[in-house]
């Protein structure tokens, strides 16, 4: 199978697998206790924390581990809003953020808070002028922006957002889920979130970093774990594996991301040349190195995914027929681009160029057959 769905989850890095197996044997004990095996687990946990913090540009004591990237976003966003309650109850966010951000914003709204959603361009980048204006409104407690969009790959103007927030005295939460381990994390965030399985670590490890001096209060019942930021017993072996994956990913990132980016360029330029009536979506230059998305006119997304799966390609789609909600992706809607016949390709590390070429070879016929079956001339 050609696996082209790294933005959903990157396959476990071999070094993470090795680290996980080793840590299951030696890192199972309770890191909060004071006997030998417990101290060993604590040491492993704190080493992993220091390594991950360094890559993300954080201090180790600013980093807590959650049970997922989604939980990191929920806690990061609601905790920062809680901590800034006296400053105001207004949240500013982008229209194409991950659903975990939208759902946490929904919770905030139901709790009486206000949410301002900044619109995006046709390529999916937030309007920086509107963002600047929105964060400067008095009573703004927090702003939130992703580094890159998870569905179309477009990079967000995070540096500009950081400047705007600094000027306005508003903390910025940066969701780095799609780029951590692949691209440098921009400095200047107040809260940072990421997810280990997106960089080749195991599932079940999210990262929540809260910058020193940022007001933050847990929205959940008190717990002693993870600097009181995340409740529950730490998954030490998985955190150790997450750190090993990040270390390995970053050490290869310079050359591997350049290679993946060239393959994405090949897909972006070749697909519209070999398939008629296709829209390639997202920014061609300001984008994550491994993600591209296109939509085919007159084609049902589910039929396209099924046909590609039968040919051995694992891809994802934002079309409504592929979603449990039967609604098109909020990202594609906010961008105003075609939502049907949508395919996202996201390349994992080490993907063979020949697989990308095979995809380009079979795609025209797949699309032609689906259109024929639907009676499109």
């Amino acid at each position, binding site marked *: 199978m050609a696996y082209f769905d790294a933005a959903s989850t990157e396959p476990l890095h071999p070094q993470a697998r090795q680290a996980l197996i080793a840590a299951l044997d030696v890192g199972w004990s309770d890191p909060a206790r004071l006997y030998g095996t417990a101290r060993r687990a604590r040491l492993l946990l704190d080493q992993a924390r220091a390594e991950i913090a360094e890559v993300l540009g954080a201090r180790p004591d600013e980093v807590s581990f959650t049970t997922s990237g989604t939980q990191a976003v929920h806690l990061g966003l609601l905790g920062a809003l809680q901590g800034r309650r006296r400053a105001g109850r207004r949240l500013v966010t982008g229209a194409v953020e991950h659903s975990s951000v939208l759902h946490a914003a929904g919770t905030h709204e139901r709790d009486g808070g206000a949410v301002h959603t900044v619109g995006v361009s046709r390529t999916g980048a937030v309007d920086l002028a509107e963002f600047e204006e929105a964060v400067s409104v008095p009573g703004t407690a927090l702003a939130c922006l992703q580094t890159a969009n998870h569905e179309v790959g477009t990079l967000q103007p995070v540096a500009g957002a950081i400047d705007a927030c600094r000027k306005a005295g508003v903390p910025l939460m940066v969701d780095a889920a799609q780029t951590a381990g692949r691209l440098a994390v921009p400095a200047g965030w107040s809260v940072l979130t990421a997810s280990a399985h997106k960089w080749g670590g195991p599932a079940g490890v999210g990262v929540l970093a809260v910058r020193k001096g940022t007001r933050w209060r847990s929205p959940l019942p008190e717990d002693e774990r993870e600097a009181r930021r995340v409740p529950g017993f730490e998954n030490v072996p998985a955190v150790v594996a997450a750190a090993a994956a990040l270390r390995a990913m970053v050490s290869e990132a310079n050359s591997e991301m350049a290679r993946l980016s060239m393959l994405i360029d090949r897909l972006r330029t070749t697909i519209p040349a070999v398939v008629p*009536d296709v*829209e390639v979506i997202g920014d061609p230059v300001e984008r994550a190195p491994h993600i591209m998305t296109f939509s085919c*006119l*007159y*084609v*049902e997304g589910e039929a396209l995914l099924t046909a590609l799966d039968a040919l051995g390609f694992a891809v994802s789609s934002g*079309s*409504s*027929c592929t979603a449990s909600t039967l*609604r*098109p992706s909020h990202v*594609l*809607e906010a961008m*105003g*681009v*075609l*939502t*049907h*016949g949508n395919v996202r390709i996201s390349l994992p590390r080490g993907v063979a160029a020949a697989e990308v070429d095979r995809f380009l070879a079979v795609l025209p016929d797949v699309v032609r057959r689906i259109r024929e079956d*639907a*009676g*499109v*001339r």
Partner: protein
Amino acid sequence: MSNPRETAPQPSLTIDALGKKCPIPIIMLAEQINQVPMNAVVAVLADDPAAFTDVPAWCRLKSHHHVGSYELPEGGWAIHVRRNY
């Protein structure tokens, strides 16, 4: 009572794609737009949320003009498209 025809221009052709999932409303539109004269308006009646985004996107890709989308009292929209060529 709100009637789309009170706020929208009278279309030359109405395509009833209510209850049809995307891409069927778009396929119907592409098939039938050439039945109206140049500069005339086609109304696509659709209630699949995808159509609300996809008909205007189709217009942009195919260089036709999206005149506007008007809510229907029974749910869905009348999405008006002007034939440009």
